[in-house]
């Protein structure tokens, strides 16, 4: 503080202005370049605590056993409660979470799963093409078989898509994804 007081008023003004410009510039650059990392993560609470680690990791159920639509259409799709009951009619049927699912299934109530990986409306993504090309789900969705609660491990900014498309000689025409 002594040092600050020792400065003349002009020097204080200059120092203040420079500091303001410096800080402002860095805030701008930080938001511009790192904003997605800081504000982009998204880990919603699911209506039923489903663990990908248990299903895909420990029990090694393939992703497309439940997300069947991924290889058929552009949307990967969320499995219906019926699909859960296929196994859970017999496996651990008395566990409280399963009972909850079973109750909803009986009553024909929808389970409102929260979407984790969401793309903006102006992006058109086709799961089918990427699966058929032979890409692993983990390439974009991260190590999903290792986490209990799924969060957005990837911000899906355009550079991510474009970089991969360039490396694999996929089309980089804008209309491939945007209309």
């Amino acid at each position, binding site marked *: 503080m002594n040092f600050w007081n020792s400065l003349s*008023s002009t020097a204080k003004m200059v120092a203040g202005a420079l500091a303001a410009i410096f800080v402002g510039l860095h805030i701008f650059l930080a938001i511009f370049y790192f904003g997605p990392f800081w504000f982009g993560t998204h880990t919603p609470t699911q209506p039923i605590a489903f663990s990908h680690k248990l299903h895909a990791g420990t029990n090694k159920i393939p992703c497309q056993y439940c997300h069947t639509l991924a290889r058929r259409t552009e949307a990967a799709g969320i499995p219906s409660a019926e699909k859960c009951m296929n196994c859970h009619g017999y496996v651990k049927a008395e566990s409280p979470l399963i009972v909850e699912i079973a109750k909803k299934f009986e009553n024909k109530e929808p389970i409102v799963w929260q979407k984790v990986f969401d793309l903006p409306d102006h992006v058109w993504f086709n799961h089918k093409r990427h699966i058929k090309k032979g890409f692993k789900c983990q390439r974009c969705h991260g190590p999903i078989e290792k986490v209990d609660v799924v969060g957005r491990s990837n911000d899906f900014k355009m550079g991510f898509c474009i970089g991969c498309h360039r490396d694999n000689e996929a089309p980089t025409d804008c209309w491939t994804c945007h209309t």
Partner: protein
Amino acid sequence: MSTSSGHAHGSAEHKAAFNDLTDVEDIRDPEAVPEVVRSTYDDADIFRDEKEFNDHTLRPMFYTTKAYFIFVIALSLIMAQGVATFAVQTYYGLGQTNMHEPLFWGSYIATFVFWVGMSHSGTIVSSLLRLSHANWRRPILRAAEAMTAFSLLVAGLFPLIHVGRLWRVYYMFPLPNQRTLWPQFKSPLMWDMMAISVYMVGSMTFLYVGLIPDLAIARDRAIANNNWRQHYLKFLALGWRGSNREWMVYNKASLFLAVIILLIAPSVHTIVSWDFAMTMTPGWHTTIFGPYFVVGAIYSGVAGVVTLMIVLRWLFKLDDVIRILHIDALGKLLVVIAIIWTYFYVNEYIVTWYSHKPEEAHMWAWQGERFPHLLWIMLGGSVLNIFLLSWSRVRRNVYMMFWMSLLVNAGMYSERYLIVVPVLTRRDNPFMWTDYLPSGTELSIIAASFAYFIFLYAIFIKLFPIVTMADVKEGVVISGDMKIGRHSVRVQARE
């Protein structure tokens, strides 16, 4: 602080005292020199000494009347309504304007071209006169250069006001981003953005470099009076002392800057003209647009300088610094430029007429049919006034010159409007022919832009010296009287 003024004209001892200071031997008998000669050549030697000159020229900066505050508040109100209208326009969308398909550019772009044009006289005139050692330039440089800087600031707003998605405008900047997308440099708008920002940097630097010695004078005055201005003046004057090293470096750098500015300025308005000429719209797609726009810009700019000079002279009683001779000389410049501009204008018609292209011929006919009033303002203000301006009694009459210069700018504004709007109302596809008048939103934003310009100027006058004092003093230093036989003439030392 003493206030001296023009009535010290005849006083011999005043002159002798000031000339003593600069140590030029005064052999002139004031009675013997005819009045005309004196009014052409004397620069600042009506002041008793340099201190008095400093006091007089710094007076607009340090002394503020109540009327000034009222004026600035009035301007702020006009600006505030403009900002509010703009906020509404941004929130709801550009539908607030009267533009529609296929008339995508309207009065905003016309005003943008007008303000870019206004910015052209200041630095061009200033650097041209500097390079050609025209002695009468000295007191008016600062006012002209400041006009350039401020009209560019105003002009730079219009592309922002006019784009559809203001919040995405940074897509135009070459910022490295993770999308690895880059602006497209083939677009004339990108050239425009580059040119205007470069011109902004150039003219601001030019203005600032010219300011440095005067800032030192103002700084000393502010410190002596313990005025609040000393804080930023100390900083901006860079500790200027006027040593021979500093002057040498300063003169050299001013020369460089004058040359560079003279290279930048014409390129800027040429590029603005390419916004139109590089399209394939009949009426815009003309090779002559580059030089035509540049000359038009200088024309409206010089007229703007004349208006400003007269207003400054009247408001701040600077009539012994900004004299009739300056107005007269600017008037002569105006005549020359007006003739060149008229040549280009007529040329455009002649080429169209000779080419027999029906769509272009129709365009001209449509102009006369739909906008006859603007056409007449343009012809009257920009072409017919050449005859009046050629008359020295008009040029030497301050009131006449004031109205003439306003008329020129009204004419040039109409010209810009006539370039942008009629062409777009009559496009290639006759099914989409349309008509257009600016809406209230557009008018209020345009009014605010004028207020903003005047506001910036008013603030500048209170913060910085408006007269190029160091340059005037240099003029006194390097000029003196020489006796040839019975005649005594003012001569100018030049390296």
